[in-house]
C-alpha cells in the first residue's frame, strides 16, 4: 500500500511569509523549528511575531521531533482531491515533547491501530522545493 505521505506534493501547501519562511526553509533541511520566548520561556507553535504569553519577540529553537498523539479523527469522507481517494486516513493533533501542538497526518500504521497517547516521531516529507510537510509516524522502539 502506498504511504499517505507520498501524496505530499498533491496537497494545498503553505505560502511562506516573513515569519514562517524561517520555519518552512528549515523543513527542507529536515529540521523542525518551534519558537521559544527569551523573556518568559514559553514555547509556541505556530510561528508568530510575538509571544502569546508576554508579547516579547520569540526566538527559534529546534524541536526534538518526538511527541505523543493528543487526539485524532479518521476521516471517512472528503470530496476534495487527493483526499477523496485516500480515505480512511488519520488527521491528528500531536503534542510535541516541548509542549506545543500541531495538526498532522499520522502515517506508517493502520488507522485502526492509532490510539490517543501513542508515541510519534516527525518525518519531514518534501512537498515542493520550498516546503517539506511534517508528517508523524509511530516512534521506533
Amino acid at each position, binding site marked *: 500500500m502506498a504511504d499517505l505521505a507520498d501524496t*505530499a506534493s*498533491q*496537497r*494545498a*501547501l*503553505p*505560502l*511562506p*511569509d516573513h515569519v*514562517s519562511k524561517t520555519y518552512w526553509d528549515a523543513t527542507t533541511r529536515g529540521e523542525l523549528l518551534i519558537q521559544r520566548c527569551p523573556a518568559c520561556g514559553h514555547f509556541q*507553535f*505556530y510561528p508568530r511575531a510575538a509571544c502569546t504569553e508576554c508579547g516579547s519577540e520569540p526566538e527559534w529553537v529546534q524541536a526534538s521531533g518526538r511527541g505523543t498523539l*493528543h*487526539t*485524532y*479523527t*479518521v*476521516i*471517512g*469522507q*472528503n*470530496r*476534495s*482531491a*487527493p*483526499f477523496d481517494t*485516500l480515505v*480512511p*486516513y488519520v*488527521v491528528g*493533533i500531536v503534542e510535541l515533547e516541548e509542549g506545543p*501542538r*500541531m*495538526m*498532522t*497526518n499520522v502515517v506508517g500504521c493502520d488507522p485502526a491501530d492509532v490510539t*490517543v*497517547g501513542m508515541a510519534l516521531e516527525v518525518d519531514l516529507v518534501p*512537498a515542493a522545493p520550498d516546503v517539506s*510537510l511534517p508528517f508523524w509516524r509511530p516512534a521506533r522502539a
Partner: protein
Amino acid sequence: MTSRAPVIAGIGWSDYPVAPHLDALQHHALAMRRALDDCGIAKSDIDGYMCASSGFNYGVDDVGTMAEYLGIRHRFIDGTSLGGSTFEFFVQHAAAAIGQGACDTVLVTYGSDMLSRMGRMLGTSTFAGKGARVSGAPQYESSWGNVLAGSYALAARRHMHEFGTTPEQLATIAVGVREFATLNPNAQYRDPITVADVLGSRMIADPLHKLDCCVISDGGGAFIMTTEERARDLRTRPVHVLGAAAAQSHWTISQMPDFTTTAAAQCGPEAFALAGVRPEDVDTVQCYDSFTITVLLLLEDMGFCAKGEGGAFVESGILRRGGALPMNTDGGGLSACHPGMRGIFLINEAVRQLRGEAGEAQVPDCEVAVACGSGGALSCIGTVVLGRG
C-alpha cells in the same frame, strides 16, 4: 436606569430551509421586514445595526454594504464576525450600546443562500485544493485533509478518551432534537430517528456519523433590541436580556487549549451571574448544535452538569420533549436549519418560547431561556440569558 434595560422586541425569519428564490441579500431584507412587522417598530426608528457576513456569500453582505442596502441610518454599528455565535456576541454588544445610550434601537440581520448556491459540499471538503498556496494561520492546517466535521471529531475523540463518553450518548442528542423537528413544519428533516439510525449512518469523521452533523440550509433571521421603556407601547411582549457574556479560546482547531473545554466555561457562568439565575432555574436551552459534541461541551461548560458527565446527562432524556430542560425546540441545526451561522435562530427560538408562541413545542411556564452559540471551531462562545417580560 431601569428604563434603558435592554429587551428583544421583534423577531423574524426569512424563508428556510430551502429557498432557491432568495439570494443572501434578500434573506437579510425579508427577515428584517418580518421582525419590524412583528413588533411594529418603524425602520426609521432603527439607529443601531449589526450583521455578519457568513463568509459563504462571496462578500456580498458585509455590514457596510448591508447598512447601505437596507438604508439604515445608524449611530452605532458592529460587524463582528466570529462564526455561528456572532449573534450571541451581538446581544452582548447591543445591550451595552443601548444601556449606555449610544443608540436606542438595534437591528440585527443574517442571511445565507448557502445550500442553493453551494450545495452540500461544505462539511466534507478541504478548504483549499491541490495547487493552492495558503496564507496566515491556516497554512499550518490546510495540507492535512481535515474537514469541518473533523475538527469537532478531534474534540469528541478526546472527550471519549478522558471521560468514557460513548457514540451512543452523543447519538441521543440528535434523536432528541429530531423529535422537536417533527413539530416544526419548516424543519429540513422531520422523520423520527433512533440511536441505531445515527450509529448506522455514514461515518464522516470518526467518531462523528452523518447524523451527528448539522444539516446544510438556506435561511435568514433578524431581531430588534431596544429599551424597556421604548418597548412598552409595542404590540409584542418584550423579552428581557438578563445577562449576556462572550469569550474566545482559540480560532483554528489545532490551537484549542483543551479539546474538552470551550470558552463557555468562562462566559456561561458570567452570563448566569449577570442574570442572577442558576442553571437549574433555566426552563429551556437553545444550544448550538453544529455537531452533537458541540452540545455536550457547551452544556458541561455552562454548568448544567459537571465536566465529563455530559454523556450521562444527555442520555438521561433531560433535553427531550417533556424533559426538565428541553433543548433546541425548533429542531435545531441537527434537523431543522443550519445556513452556515445558526446563532440568530437560537435567539429567535428562545424569544418564541418566552412569549409562549411555540405551539406544540411550547415549554410550559417558560420564564428563563438560555441561548448559547459556538463559532469558528468551538472557538468563540456567547451565552445569553433571557427572561419573560
